């Protein structure tokens, strides 16, 4: 299967927010009401029940004019995902589509992924079980993995009417991105393609009209070394130790039992092996 990625050309976005509604519609997410912040932006950032948000950057142009810089903000599905490394329960994994998904049967709501996410897009949602007890699960964009499995495109991409959001084969998309970049360079001299290599690229590639920092994106993100050490070395070692300890304890119990058994045999003398 060819690699497919989501492409966001922010210069084509007109801020209609159809992608936000389409996401809520497909994923059956409830309303999140936030206080008016003085901006046209609806939510401050993505949250546990709002998996994508159009950010409205107020920007002054070179000749003193005003323009919006929109960005479809959601999970970028990093190839090397810090959330996956941070998760102590192995609840976060990559699918064959490159999407990073959370297994809610395994998630214990510890929140390590929310603090370690490179782009601050994971949040904990609070639910109540039937006894009224509260519990938490990490929530974020799934790239509509359930739709991808059925050969459909993500809900946000389907809704987008300006071709700002595109889901297509990686090579096609990246070639198209270069073409579009050349076209907009004159109007936006700082324009760039955002596909950070420090985390081995992302499954959502942006064409930004200005420097990543203008959009609140890290210029060159990396998964912290501590996370790599924790996940790739410390955790497996810990688990091996746990296994070894378990086996030692069980082994000792059995050996003890057998010793007693043996004692019994010596007294009774009914050993017929």
């Amino acid at each position: 299967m060819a690699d497919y990625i989501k492409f966001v050309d922010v210069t084509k976005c007109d801020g209609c927010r159809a992608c936000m509604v389409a996401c809520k519609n497909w994923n059956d997410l409830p309303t999140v009401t936030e206080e008016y912040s003085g901006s046209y932006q609806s939510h401050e950032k993505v949250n546990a029940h709002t998996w994508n948000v159009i950010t409205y950057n107020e920007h002054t142009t070179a000749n003193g004019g005003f323009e919006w810089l929109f960005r479809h903000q959601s999970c970028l599905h990093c190839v090397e995902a810090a959330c996956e490394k941070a998760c102590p329960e192995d609840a976060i994994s990559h699918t064959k589509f490159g999407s990073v998904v959370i297994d809610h049967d395994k998630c214990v709501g510890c929140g390590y992924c929310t603090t370690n996410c490179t782009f601050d897009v994971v949040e904990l949602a609070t639910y109540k079980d039937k006894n009224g007890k509260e519990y938490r699960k990490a929530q974020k964009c799934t790239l509509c993995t359930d739709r991808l499995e059925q050969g459909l495109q993500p809900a946000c991409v389907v809704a987008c009417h300006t071709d700002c959001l595109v889901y297509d084969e990686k090579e096609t998309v990246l070639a198209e991105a270069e073409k579009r970049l050349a076209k907009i360079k004159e109007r936006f001299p700082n324009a760039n393609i955002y596909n950070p290599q420090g985390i081995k690229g992302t499954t959502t590639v942006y064409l930004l009209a200005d420097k990543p920092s203008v959009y609140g994106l890290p210029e060159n993100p990396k998964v912290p070394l501590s996370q790599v050490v924790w996940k790739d070395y410390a955790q497996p070692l810990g688990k091996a130790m746990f296994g070894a300890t378990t086996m030692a304890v069980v082994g000792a119990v059995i050996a003890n039992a057998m010793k007693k058994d043996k004692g019994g045999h010596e007294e009774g003398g009914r050993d017929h092996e």
Partner: protein
Amino acid sequence: MEVNVTRRQFLKLSGAVAATLAVVELGFDEKSAKAKSSEFKIAKIKPTPTICPYCSVGCGILVYATEDDVVYTEGDPDHPINEGTLCSKGTTVRQVYTSEKRITKPMYRAPGSSKWEEVDWEFALDKVTKNIKESRDKAFTHMKDGYPVNRTDNIAYLGGAALDNEECHLLHKFFRAGLGLTYIEHQARI
């Protein structure tokens, strides 16, 4: 130390070790142990095509409805106007049915009253009929400047984008030819 293990003891011990290993292994390898089993939410639903009720563009929408619920709505990819896309308002069309704020019974606010109350359809329709008849008759003009006009200036009619072409045609006939209205307008002329 002399190791004196009988055959039964050896089997017991190796069995226990294997069992422990199996448990430990299972605990380690949950990833492959569990397959995804959530059901695709529009798997068994045949979508119904409709037209967006909001503005005059008239985008096509596919409605995925079960017996008693609308589970998803999406732009109709085969529709020539929107080709599968929708705006944020059109995307919310599912809430026309599912919203808790939706009014499902006729509401009546009596003259001078400050609150709405639920009434039955019979009352509501009777009331509307009576008021239309009264208003119409009160200001009905048969002749104007020697010409027969047969019109009433007391009532105006406002249509909405939820009406399709044929409905508009019928309503227009009913209000202009039937009741004699001249103030007939439509919301969707932006």
